[in-house]
């Protein structure tokens, strides 16, 4: 039996993702941190429709973030989130970085998927639910 979370990313790459996620979504105000909420278990689902080159490139980024000191990772995230402040020749790269990082972290966190985690579910924290009843059909 395997407890493997991802077939796309290595353990070190997943640790890089946890590091990024916890910077972007820390614990507080009733919210669990990114790594506490267990959503990383759905990382392969989140990446399933991505192009193989993008998955590879994202893996390199995660690995770099795993080995980089936390302040450097914070700086990368901050630069990506402020792409418009950069000159036009570098801004697209920063925007792509932001779409990649934020796209995965936010998608996982607010997916409501939790793996084996017993922490609060972010969707419950924001009191989100949708009803579509089909029993009358």
């Amino acid at each position, binding site marked *: 039996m395997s407890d493997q979370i991802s077939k796309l990313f290595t353990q070190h790459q997943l640790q890089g993702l946890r590091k990024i996620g916890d910077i972007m979504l820390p614990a507080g105000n009733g919210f669990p941190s990114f790594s506490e909420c267990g959503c990383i278990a759905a990382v392969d689902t989140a990446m399933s429709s991505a192009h193989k*080159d993008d998955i590879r490139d994202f893996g390199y980024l995660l690995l770099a973030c795993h080995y980089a000191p936390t302040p450097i990772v914070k700086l990368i995230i901050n630069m990506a989130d402020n792409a418009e402040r950069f000159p036009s020749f570098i801004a697209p790269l920063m925007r792509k970085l932001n779409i990649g990082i934020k796209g995965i972290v936010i998608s996982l966190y607010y*997916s409501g998927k939790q793996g084996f985690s017993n922490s609060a579910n972010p969707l419950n924290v924001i009191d989100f639910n949708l009803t579509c009843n089909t029993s009358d*059909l």
Partner: protein
Amino acid sequence: MNKIHDFIIIGSGASGSVIAHELTRAGADVLMLEAGQRFSAATFPDNELDANANLMWNGGMDASADASTLFIRGKVVGGGTIINQCLLDRFDDDALDSWQTQSGINFFNSKTMAKHYDAVESNLTLHSMEQKDWNKNAELYVQGFENKGFEWAPLRRGQSNCGEGNDCMQCLGGCPRRSKQSMLETFLPKAEQAGLTIQSEFLAREVIHGPSFVAVSGYQGSKATTFYSRKVILASGALGTTELLLRSQLQDKLPALGKGFHCHPQWMTVALFNDVIDSHKGAFQTVKSSDARFRKAGFKLENVFAGPIAIGLLKPGYGFDHQRFMSQYRNMSCIEVAVRDEDPGTMILDNRDRLVINKPLSDADRQRANNGNALVQDMFQDLGAKEVMTSPLQIGLHLMGGCAIGNNPNHSVVNANFQVHDHPNLYIADSSIFPNAPGINPSLSVMALSHRASQSILADCGINQAQASLQEQATS
């Protein structure tokens, strides 16, 4: 020996499904190829992440070359009609006149198009939303409009039975009630009953045009496969159809291929209120802007909202401030500005054979967006919002152009009969043929154009409508 079908249709969205219906009812042998999976009302994902991953190309994260705009397009049997809101408006004279002027095509007028709209609408259940359908988000929208003296109107949506107390935002991941009038509930079942074969999860990579038949090569999983037919109809939308023709190396023969791309770029403004709004509950969209001043100014205001993942992506920043914002999800109201973009973009393949979409925003289009966004911010301030956030992220939901229709082969890709210039066995009638941005939701017009295209195709094959009707009666 390989089977040669009468027709292959690549793509199962609004265009492909209508054409499949018309061709199969005429008795033709039609194979439909679709890159996405087949879901049903019982199997649609019930989670935003699963819906993004399973129903959209690249999880809904296709970006422009400068990464300023995200393009959302369906990758599922039923195409974009599975993930859209099924808002079905006809084009007005302004849009059709503009198309006629640009393309030189005479049938772009209200009188001629009316019979095609009538024909496709006869296959759909349409509902004009009423005041009893409004949720609090719609109430605020109307109040905001009336405070400013702007005109609004009820939306017309394709839906049959949404029941009581249901949240139609769920429909953005496929309608579990079979109410939304997607192709899966309307044209496709009829076409399948008449003999249509659908091959899902087939990724078409190339079309090779010959004088008597066309070959379509691609992959079923990892297995390379080729299908053959006498004629092929490309119906994969602005990005899919253009990409396939570029991969087929037709750009030298078709100088307009990949040009004229439009997307009605959209900006969402989210306002936080002290009261609970619950914009995600009930009927999702019920009212629209109908003020002629907006049409003239080149934008419209849409009363929309989004799931937690999408709202989380729209909000700039991260950390505690981002979580503080998200914790007020139920207190959010939202209005979106959709711009009728004048300046077209382009699509090419890069040296890694990937589609590159260049869609920079011109100064004029930026000014339209700024005007609309300023208006929305002002409306929300008047309504007593405690915080208003306009997302810097641009979204392209209506993807149009790349294979424009027109009489001049130097400036268009298909002719008035929907045939690719100098490729008599290739047809296109999806949104890639739009000559410019109409500023109106395109889905119904894609269906109407496809209805007209199917008549042209059948006529090219020597089958007229009367014969088709007789064939249909004989089949039934």
